[in-house]
Every structure is written in C-alpha cells, then in structure tokens.
C-alpha cells in the first residue's frame, strides 16, 4: 500500500514526536546537559521536520496537480492469491521459529520450502528434490562446517 505524501508525512511526524517526547525519560551525564537523551531529542526533531516537509509537499502537490488518494492500493493487494502468498511466506517464517526446536532444522527447512516452491508452480517432484537437497546442504554448511547448533530432530543422525 502506497501512502500519499500527506499521510506519510503525518505518520513520520507522529513517530518523530513520539521519539522526541520519549527523550524526557532518559537522563544526562552527571553535571552535563548531554547524555542518553541527546540522540532521541535530535532524531525526534529530524522525524518531525521530515514529516512536516513531506506533508507540505503533499499539500502543494494537492493544490497544483489535484487530490491524490490517501492510500493507493497496489495490484497485488487486490489479488487474494498474492496476498495469501505473502501471508504464507511470513507465516512459514514464524512457523519455522516455533516448530524447528521440536522437529529439527532438516524437517522444518524442508517443510518451509516445499509449499513455497509449489506456490510458485514448481512440480511436486522438483519441489521435493530441491527442498530436501537445500535443507541438507544448509545443514552441512552451517551445522557441520561452521558448527552452528541448528535445532536437532528425528532426522538428525549420522553426519546430518
């Protein structure tokens, strides 16, 4: 979704304001006017000024070119298939975090890649072969070669 300049400017201004306001919660160095609060103060101001500048740009654009919708809905957002693809992609990422400690890296990686390959239209056979091979190669590179303690599961035996 693409916001217009006024909406985006407002959002950035509010974020800047929040950062600016939060700076009061942080202290300074003893006997100094500077400390943990300095950066939030400056960054908050940067956000507010940027948001304001973008908002003004949006207002000027509105006057010269005409009204621009607050938010432009891109084509993919109107296609349930594409929205579902993105939801599935993120869902699989989160699912990996949850299930990998239980079923192990090999199986979890395979189960994350397989539906995504199928979603793109890869044949079952190719999807299974490529997903399995990738999972094994990643396990060998990270798990064996670099000694990263990837989650182990029922398939973790021998050199895997």
């Amino acid at each position, binding site marked *: 979704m693409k916001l217009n300049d006024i909406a985006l400017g407002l959002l950035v201004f509010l974020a800047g304001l929040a950062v600016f306001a939060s700076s009061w919660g942080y202290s300074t160095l003893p006997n100094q006017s500077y400390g943990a609060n300095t950066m939030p103060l400056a960054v908050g101001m*940067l956000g507010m000024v940027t948001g304001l500048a973008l908002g003004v740009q949006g207002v000027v654009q509105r006057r010269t070119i005409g009204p621009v919708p607050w938010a432009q809905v891109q084509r993919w957002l109107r296609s349930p298939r594409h929205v579902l693809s993105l939801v599935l992609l993120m869902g699989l990422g989160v699912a990996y975090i949850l299930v990998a400690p239980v079923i192990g890296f090999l199986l979890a*990686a395979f189960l*994350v890649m397989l539906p995504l*390959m199928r979603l*793109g239209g890869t044949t079952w056979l190719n999807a299974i072969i490529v997903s399995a091979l990738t*999972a094994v190669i990643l396990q060998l590179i990270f798990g064996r070669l670099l000694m990263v303690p990837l989650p182990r599961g029922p398939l973790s035996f021998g050199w895997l």
Partner: protein
Amino acid sequence: MQVLMDAFGHVFQWHVLLVIVLAAAFGMLVGAIPGLTATMATSLLVPLTFFMDPVPAVATIVTATAMAIFAGDIPGALLRIPGTPSSAAYVDDSYILSRQGRANDALGASLFFSVLGGTIGTIVLVVSAPQLAEIALNFTSFEYFWLVMLGLFCATFVSPGTPTRGLIALFLGLGFAMVGQTNPTGEPRYTFGSIELMAGIQFIPAMIGLFAMSEVMRFYAHPFQNQKPAGVKGPILRQQFGVLRRYPVQALRGSAVGTAIGILPGAGADIAAWISYAVSKRFSRKPKEFGKGSIEGLVEAGSANNASVSASWVPALVFGIPGDSITAIAIGVLYIKGINPGPTIFLTQPDIIYAVFIVFFLALLLMLPLGWITIRAAGLLLAIPPRVLMPIILMCCVTGAYAINNSAAGILIMLCFGVLGFIMAENDIPVAPVILGLVLGPMLEENFVNSMIKANGNFGAFFERPISAALGVFTIAVLLMPIIRLIMRKQRIKSES
C-alpha cells in the same frame, strides 16, 4: 617490507584462496540473476564470514561485490533487466547491442572495463588510504562528527527517490541505532523490557531482512518469470583492446569519476554509473547514440561502477565511515571481528590492511576468467526460475539470521526488517540510508556528545579547527542542496512562463 610479507602470508593460504574463488563464483551467480543485487549477495554471505578469520571474511565481501557489480551487466544486456541497480544506467545500450547480435561486444566491454575501472580504483585506494590515514590521525571528535554527518546526508540525498524520502529512511536508521544500552549513560533505551534488545538491534539479521528478505517478499507480491535468452557467440575480450584505443579518455574519465564518487562517504556504485553515463553523454561527439547501443557510454559507466567499488573502501578503512551500503555491511563485519576501522588500524594492524589490498587485485585478476565463463554460461544461468530460487533464499536468510547468535530472535528481527524493507520499497523510500544510520548512529552520538562536553556546550567549537570547519561547511552545503535546487527550478519555471 615485513608487513607486506605478512599480508601475503595472510592471503596466500589455500583456505583463503579457496574462499576467494568460491565468493567470486557466488558473486557472479547472484549478480547475473535478475532481482538479486550485489548488496543481497553481501548480506547472504555475512553469516558465513562470521565464522572466518578477518582476512578471509573481508576477502569474501570484496570479491563477491566486485563480481556481482560486473555480473549485473549480463541480464541487462541479454534480457534488458539489470542484474544490479548499478547496471541500470546503460542497460538500453547493452540490450540494443545484443539485439544487433553484438552481445559479445557489449558484455566483453563490460568485463574489460570493469576490470580496468576496478584496477584504477584499487590503485587509488592503495596509494591514498595510508596518506589519508596519516592526516586522519590528527582528527578529533569534531572532525569525525562532520564526517559522519557528511556520509549520512550524502547517502540520503543521492539515493533514488526524493530527498525527503531519503530523510525518512535516515530517521528510521538512526532511530533503530538508539535501541539498547550503547549510549553515553549506558541506560537501556527503547528495549521495552526485552533482554535481547539490550545489546541493540542485531545488525546482520536487520540487514539480511532489509536487503534479501524484502526481495523475496517482493517476488511473491509481484512474481516474474525469467525469459530464456540466447547464448553469447563470438569473441568476448579480443576486440576490447581496439575499443580501449578508440575510447581511452572515456575509460579514464569513467574510472576517475567512479573513484571520486566512491571516495565520497555515502555514495556508491549505482550513483557512480549514472553520473558517469551522464558525463559521457555530455562530452560525447555522438550524444544521440546514447541509449541506442552506444559502446562509448558503456565503457565510461562500466569503468565507473567498478572503480567506485574499490574507492568506497577509502572512507571505510581510513575513517570507519562507509562509502556505500556494501561497505556499511563490511564495517559491521570488521567490528564483529574486533577490527575497528579508522586511521589507527594502519598503525596497529597494517598487515590486515595490505592483505585487503592484495585481495582487491586478486579479485580483479579472477574477474577476467570467471567473467568470461559466466558470459558463456549466461544462457544456463538466466534460465534458473525465480520460483525455485526464492524459497532457497528465504531459507538462507532464516539460517543466516539464526547463526549470528544461535537465537530465534535473529530470525524474528530479520522477518520484521524484511517487512519494513518491503513497505519502504512500496512507498519509494530508499533502504540504504537505514543501514548507514544503523551503522553510523552510535558513532554520531558518541562524537557529538564528546565534542559538546569538550566544548562546554558551545556549538561554535565545531567550526574552530580548520578541517572541522571545512567539513562542516561542506556538509551544510550538501544539506542545503535540495533547497537550493528547488529554488533554482522555481525561478527557471517562472522565467520560462
């Protein structure tokens, strides 16, 4: 001399050489595949470098980047899809040449002049970095403050999109840099009670999310299918000496402009290519041929983007301020390895620096044969369907983000930054300033607070030392540039009407 021998000793070990060859092949592969950028190649490699010694770690990044920037020209010439943004400036020329059956001429020129530009950029790096480091040894927090500001604003104002959108990215980057306990008083800031966030936002998962995960998301939102290109026929390199004899000025000017832009903190290969292409057109005797199959533009811009890759390491190594998003990543890696880039590194670890220089030359030497093979195998490479590639990249992102701290928090950060990168791209907000803000934010804070304490709160002290004053004036000029340009444009419109 002993330092140089040590440097050769660091590089000429079988495992370092193997790492260089593998990184080169990986860089070629990623650069040649449309949709995968040089920055993505670097970010996917960083988790691996985490487990290496400093020299092979930096060698991996240097080699992969140089290769990816060249290889980006291959899908540009054969499919009119630039493999990396730095190939976009002359994509029309190389594509038209390919359609005329001269793909070998176009890609040969890209390869030959990439090596030439890269060599000139590297020579400038080798010669100027130690000299600059000697000057930089006298720098105090005042000079560093302005250098960081200059890097941040250059990156913001020269990135694609409007300056205000660049500033939004900078705001986000600096905002994320504030998270954690690394601040003057050491109190937890924006951690929301999370222990994971105490040390700040993990840089590598954030970067993998911004550059690689967002690309995977973009594919599922806007899927595309690679077309099958024809293979490249005819000699590739033989005729390039003739091209060099015809366009020596262009090759040198492209390399010089690329080097100068690379040295500027915050500007990288993409900008170097665009500016060089425009300069070439401006001084050409045949400007009308540009965009219609001009070898001249290709020579100049092709030299420029690779020259800037080497030159962008000058500010990175000398001041610790990245020249572009790739060196920002490299600096992050150096810090993780316990090497603090800056002028003192030339005194404390000169062997490491010279080893990096040797790696640059080795990478360029490798580029010729590997580039030749990649051009010949382009038909096969470009046929790899993205629908198979993207799930593999997702898994590489997940494993890489986990491997940094062996914690699922890294994966979560990577996913969040992936969504952020995706939303930013949808709203035409550049991503590079976020990563520069994240890397330079702590440095900015430290140098500003230290300077203000030293100066007793007098901001005028930032203009009291000559170099600091010059850097300050230059930074303010860069900051005011968009406003000056806007006023000039308005006056032009007024006078025309």
